[in-house]
């Protein structure tokens, strides 16, 4: 049995899952639209939370937020579950599939058999949709993959119950009720307001624009504090989080710029096109940062001066993003 879900690739897994599920229920929102309404653009640098022994730098809100916000803002009802027993988690998923309901879920990528070996780290915030089962094999719409993939029962159970930091615990979600009319304009405005708020006003220095400055200040001191080798490693990790499959710094800015472009049309507010251009410029700055950082860590940080340059570049980025979100904050219908 295979549910008639159209698999479409996306830049970011949670955008993709949300967009693919919405399409199934005849709400054709693009990936950038989902990303914007879900306020997927974020920044946090948390030196005390470590993943594979390296501080966490993240360019996204917590897993699940995009789906939750988008559906809530469009008045769509959803159900979400979490399990302690793998068998129960699989049984309940099977029952949903039999009813013809595609199911979104969180998985760890380490045991994800169709993923390229090099990408299989212990990372537990990946999203995919299961949309059918034949014998012992499930059909998987994984937004980072170009085509539909399959997993066996055991493989799927294993990735749904991956262990380590943020274990997924079989978390799954689906759309249970769709309203007759959705308020797209209102949802876009709410999404923009939220992203602006998150980037500008969280009163803790690790988040949003302040978080970028916080990392900039710390990064400058990495070579003297950590030694060249470890500094290079920390920097490499930032770039991986910045630009790895399914996450992204520059990539996210470009998706957001695409969203603003689309939003300008829907809301009939052409000023958003200008902000979109500014966002594209910041995205290019993030790319420059990644480029410079890669040169630095490749040499294992023999030129410590470049850490200063990197830090300065981040400060410029933070200032530009602050300007952008100050403008966006004022949005109304």
């Amino acid at each position, binding site marked *: 049995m295979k549910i008639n879900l159209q698999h479409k*690739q*996306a*830049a970011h897994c949670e955008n993709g899952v949300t967009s693919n599920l919405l399409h199934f229920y005849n709400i054709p929102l693009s990936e*950038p639209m989902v990303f914007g309404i879900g306020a997927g653009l974020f920044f946090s640098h948390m030196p005390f939370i470590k993943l*594979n022994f390296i501080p966490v730098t993240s360019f996204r809100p917590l897993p699940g937020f995009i789906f939750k916000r988008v559906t809530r803002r469009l008045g769509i009802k959803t159900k979400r579950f979490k399990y302690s027993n793998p068998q129960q988690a699989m049984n309940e998923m099977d029952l949903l599939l039999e009813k013809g309901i595609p199911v979104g879920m969180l998985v760890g990528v*380490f045991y994800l058999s169709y*993923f*390229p*070996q*090099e*990408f299989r*780290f*212990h990372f537990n915030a990946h999203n995919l949709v299961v949309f059918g089962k034949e014998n012992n094999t499930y059909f998987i719409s994984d937004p*980072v*993959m*170009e*085509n539909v993939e399959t997993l066996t029962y055991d493989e799927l159970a294993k990735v749904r119950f991956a*262990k*380590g930091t943020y*274990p997924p615990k079989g978390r799954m979600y689906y759309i249970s009720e769709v309203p007759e009319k959705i308020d797209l304009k209102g949802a876009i405005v709410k999404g923009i307001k939220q992203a602006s708020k998150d980037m500008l006003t969280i009163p803790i220095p690790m988040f949003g624009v302040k978080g970028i400055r916080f990392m900039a200040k710390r990064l400058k001191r990495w070579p003297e504090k950590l030694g060249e080798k470890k500094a*290079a*490693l920390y920097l*490499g*990790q930032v*770039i*991986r989080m910045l*630009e*790895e*499959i399914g996450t992204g710094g*520059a*990539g996210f800015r*470009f*998706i957001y*710029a*695409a969203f603003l*472009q689309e939003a300008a049309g829907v809301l009939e507010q052409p000023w958003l096109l200008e902000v979109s*251009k500014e966002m*594209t410029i910041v*995205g*290019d700055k993030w*790319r420059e940062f*990644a*480029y410079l*950082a*890669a040169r630095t*860590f*490749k040499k294992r940080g023999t030129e410590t001066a470049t850490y200063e340059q990197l830090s300065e570049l981040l400060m410029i980025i933070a200032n530009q993003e602050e300007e952008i979100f100050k403008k966006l904050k004022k949005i109304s219908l």
Partner: protein
Amino acid sequence: MKIKDVPQDDDGFLQEGKVRDLCYAIDEDGNYKQVLSIGWNPKNEAMKLALQLVDEQVENTKQAVIEGKLSPLAYYMEKNMMDVKLLSQYTGIPKRKIRKHLNPNVFFKLKPSLIEQYAKIFNLSIQDLLNIESVKISKPFNEE
């Protein structure tokens, strides 16, 4: 980023038709479009750096296993990028016991059921897990 600037730096990580990075870039008229990328050097370098680090640790442990200082369990734990805590979460075997099993004298005398529990997590056969020759021929991630 313009469409013509979308990087296509193939370093063997991504694969056309299977998995490529989907990027958003602007066309001649400034409109955003989706473009697939086979890779970008800074990302590829970051990936290599991370794998290199894993390889260094794995190589050290490999030597210790060959010299009989550590059990093959230590090697496969490193190879799977796990620490004792994570391995304990996956197997349900207490951390204290896993630490003991890193000792070859203890490990090779373990009950088959315990060996099987470990083998399952590493996707290995019991024979391979117990055979030091398999450790010797195992390849690093950054095969260049």
